[in-house]
């Protein structure tokens, strides 16, 4: 803002903006260190250059992984995991719509057999989108549902099967074991399955998302992230640290509760929004 020279207060402002966007203090400090180094190396004198340089830096981190969906099978098997209430079931509805409208044959598996009315919720979404859902009754074994969904997908020659799971906190090892079992069952039935394990992260979440990504990653081999609720005021900056440390790419973002409110992740757009107040 009309500054003549690059001074410390300018770095401080940027650091604050990063922290305010949930980038986290560790990652923010490292980014600022790299930025300082680059300013020196490239002999940058113009204060107006600082922010674009930082944005470029972050974009580089976020663009590292493969952003398109892993395919396999057929059917491509997608397992959706995450902590409670982040938007898994809603994202599955949107994903089904996204791929169906691109001409793919999609079926869903209601493997959240635990949360009250989770199956009904997925069914409403399936009707909205016009795809089938394979379900058992509440309280049944989620791995058995996943197995049946995959069987149905093969029998009906589907291109894609997307499996919903119950929300669970990553620190609960018995519940994480349940996800491992679902994974095992799918892999035994179809080589390479699940081809994509999508971890849903809520953009409103702060630094705990790092722990979520780490532990879900260890238990289920997460291959991609969906960052939801970006239509709110939260920026979701924590995924920068996650991308840097865990090298898991963000594949989609959620921007609302509607069926169309899903977008492929665009690092450039994300970084621009990161600095908007």
């Amino acid at each position, binding site marked *: 803002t009309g500054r003549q020279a690059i001074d410390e207060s300018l770095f401080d402002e940027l650091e604050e903006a990063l922290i305010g966007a949930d980038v986290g203090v560790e990652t923010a400090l490292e980014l600022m260190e790299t930025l300082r180094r680059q300013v020196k190396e490239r002999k940058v004198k113009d204060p107006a250059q600082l922010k674009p340089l930082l944005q470029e830096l972050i974009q580089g981190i976020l663009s590292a992984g493969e952003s398109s969906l892993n395919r396999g099978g057929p059917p491509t098997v997608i397992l959706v995991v995450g902590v409670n209430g982040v938007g898994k079931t809603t994202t599955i509805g949107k994903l089904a719509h996204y791929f169906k409208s691109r001409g793919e044959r999609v079926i869903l598996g209601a493997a959240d057999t635990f949360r*009250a009315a989770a199956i009904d919720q997925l069914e409403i979404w399936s009707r909205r989108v016009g795809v089938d859902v394979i379900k058992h009754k509440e309280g049944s074994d989620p791995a058995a549902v996943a197995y049946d969904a995959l069987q149905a997908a093969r029998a009906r020659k589907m291109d894609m099967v997307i499996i919903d799971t119950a929300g669970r906190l990553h*620190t609960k090892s018995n519940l994480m074991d349940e996800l491992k079992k679902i994974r095992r069952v799918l892999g035994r039935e179809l080589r390479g399955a699940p081809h994509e394990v999508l971890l849903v992260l809520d953009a409103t979440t702060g630094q705990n998302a790092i722990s979520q990504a780490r532990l879900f990653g260890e238990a289920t081999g997460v291959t991609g992230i969906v960052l939801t609720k970006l239509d709110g005021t939260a920026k979701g900056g924590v995924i920068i640290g996650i991308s840097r440390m865990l090298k898991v790419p963000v594949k989609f973002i959620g921007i609302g509760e509607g069926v169309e409110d899903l977008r492929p992740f665009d690092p450039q757009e994300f970084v621009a929004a990161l600095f908007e107040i």
Partner: protein
Amino acid sequence: MQETFRKLKSKGRLTEADVDEAMKEVRRALLAADVNFQVVKTFVARVKERAVGQDVLSSLTPAQQVIKIVRDELAGLMGGTQSKLNLAPKPPTVVMMVGLHGAGKTTTAAKLANLMRKQGRRPMLVAGDVYRPAAIKQLQVLGEQLGIPVFSMGDRHTPVDIARAAVEHAVKQGRDLVIIDTAGRLEINEEMMAELEALKAAVRPHEILLVVDAMTGQVAVNIAETFNKRLGLDGVVLTKLDGDTRGGAALSIKAVTSCPIKFVGVGEKLDALEPFHPDRMADRILGM
């Protein structure tokens, strides 16, 4: 953080430089716990002001003294224990659950009904979320699990009409506690926030509870501030504290609303609701 404090131990007294060094670590710890950066700034400045120039108590080392000041300030900010609902002088007491999507409103409504019944109340749950797929069914299933009645009019009426009818029904049925579930909404969604204001005007709740996910990051401040400004919150419930989050959102919310955090959610089961303990929360945020 405790490492830095250990270094202080060897010295005879607290210098300003010592306090500065310690405060740098306090700042980092609070930010790592997701306390809002503005809140951290104010907090650190206040602690520093108190610490420098204060006599070190003879019973404490300088490090212990700094830790004591930080913890005292933090616990003070968090307020005392207050996990009682405002009860209506003339029943029924009307409680309204509000908050962002997926925060835990529906589950907490059921947990609260369960807790209050144990305290001798006759609760009724109200399905006021007419938007989210299967939200009504979710509340009905929870009500059934508890054996607590759920009032619903389907999803073709406005939440205001539903809530009005629900309160009337509760009076007839001799229910002395009405807990209204509402749909998740963004604090920046004008239309949806106006709906809550209309709901408040229609049923004049004795208690409006903001339900917040304990894992919430920097925006906890915006959320709490906006909901409080528009509705006048009576209390906050912090959910999902059964995980490993440090829960700095608690401090952010207290700092901007000075509204009491009344309960914490510590699991998905319907008995996993506990009173809020400020001192425990302060230690959790500091990672001690």
